[in-house]
């Protein structure tokens, strides 16, 4: 076995701590001058790839991948500072038509074929679109087995055992490589990309590509009709006695 070639796609999203604002035209969320960072679920997948290597699973290469505006390079640098060996950046500017999960999956399929990857670890969803589709679509397009919402990954020889988080418990699946894995929150604790490592990561190679290099010209298939903020929470009512509470509950139809 010559060692795993792991591909880790990452996405640049609005930072989790920032409250997203809808733009005035109600077509999208405001992204200008908003702090961005790596999608937290993608951090988990990078960390898992690195941990596989640290656990002495033969890993030949960890490649980070991102499609997005030029600033996505910062995210790739973070990925490389954490421990990815090199990275590929496909430039999709903000003014270009944005990629949809299917478009990303098609693009990733090409990348997997080009890089001869045999393991793809993705975040289960991005915290901006929350589509949770890319990993599944990629597995479908490649015809590979998939394990979603992984909370534990073990690789012995060519067999991968993944513990998945499902409603009300866990599910253990086993499959042979190549494989697609999507990560869940409890998989690991991602390390912090420290300053010296970020400096070192600047020397790691980063390829710059465009959609045309992969023979793709994705036109959006989905149409965003309207984006609105959730309704503000209505204030509660104080009740002074049990009777008034019961009458209130009856009024609300809870009893």
């Amino acid at each position: 076995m010559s060692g795993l070639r792991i591909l880790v796609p990452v996405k640049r999203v609005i930072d989790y701590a920032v409250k997203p604002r809808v733009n005035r035209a109600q077509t999208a969320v405001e992204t200008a001058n908003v702090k961005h960072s790596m999608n937290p679920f993608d951090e988990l997948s990078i960390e898992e790839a690195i941990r596989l290597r640290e656990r002495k699973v033969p890993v030949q290469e960890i490649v980070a991948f991102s499609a997005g505006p030029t600033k996505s390079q910062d995210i790739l640098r973070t990925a490389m500072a954490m421990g990815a060996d090199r990275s590929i950046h496909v430039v999709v500017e903000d003014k270009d038509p944005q990629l949809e999960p299917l478009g990303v999956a098609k693009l990733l399929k090409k990348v997997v074929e080009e890089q001869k990857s045999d393991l793809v670890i993705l975040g289960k969803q991005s915290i901006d679109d929350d589509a949770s589709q890319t990993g599944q679509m990629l597995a479908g397009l490649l015809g590979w087995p998939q394990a979603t919402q992984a909370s534990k990954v073990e690789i012995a020889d060519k067999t991968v055992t993944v513990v998945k988080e499902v409603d009300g418990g866990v599910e253990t699946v086993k499959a042979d490589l190549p494989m697609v894995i999507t990560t869940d929150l409890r998989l690991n604790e991602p390390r912090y990309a420290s300053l010296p490592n970020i400096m070192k990561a600047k020397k790691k190679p980063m390829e710059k590509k465009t959609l045309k290099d992969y023979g793709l010209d994705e036109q959006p298939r989905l149409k965003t009709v309207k984006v609105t903020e959730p309704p503000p929470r209505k204030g509660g009512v104080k009740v002074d006695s049990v009777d008034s509470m019961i009458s209130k509950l009856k009024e609300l139809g809870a009893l």
Partner: protein
Amino acid sequence: MASFNPTLRHQVIAVYKELLFLGREYPLGYEYYRTRLRKAFASQKDVTDEAQIKKGIERAQFVKKEIEALYYLKRYRALRQRYDKI
């Protein structure tokens, strides 16, 4: 500025820089963090004993780990609240 041990001096500056870098994401803001970090380092400026300095560096490394853990937990809790509520 007479430095007693250049390697130690370098280590102190390096850990200070790393801590400063960590502060960019501090929940209470970078300025809050920076002034306090500066004060903490300045309060130790008269330490000349090498063993004491080494202890100080160790403490700084410990604080660094704590801050990293703080960031991790903060994010983990936020995500758990958003995605794990059944």
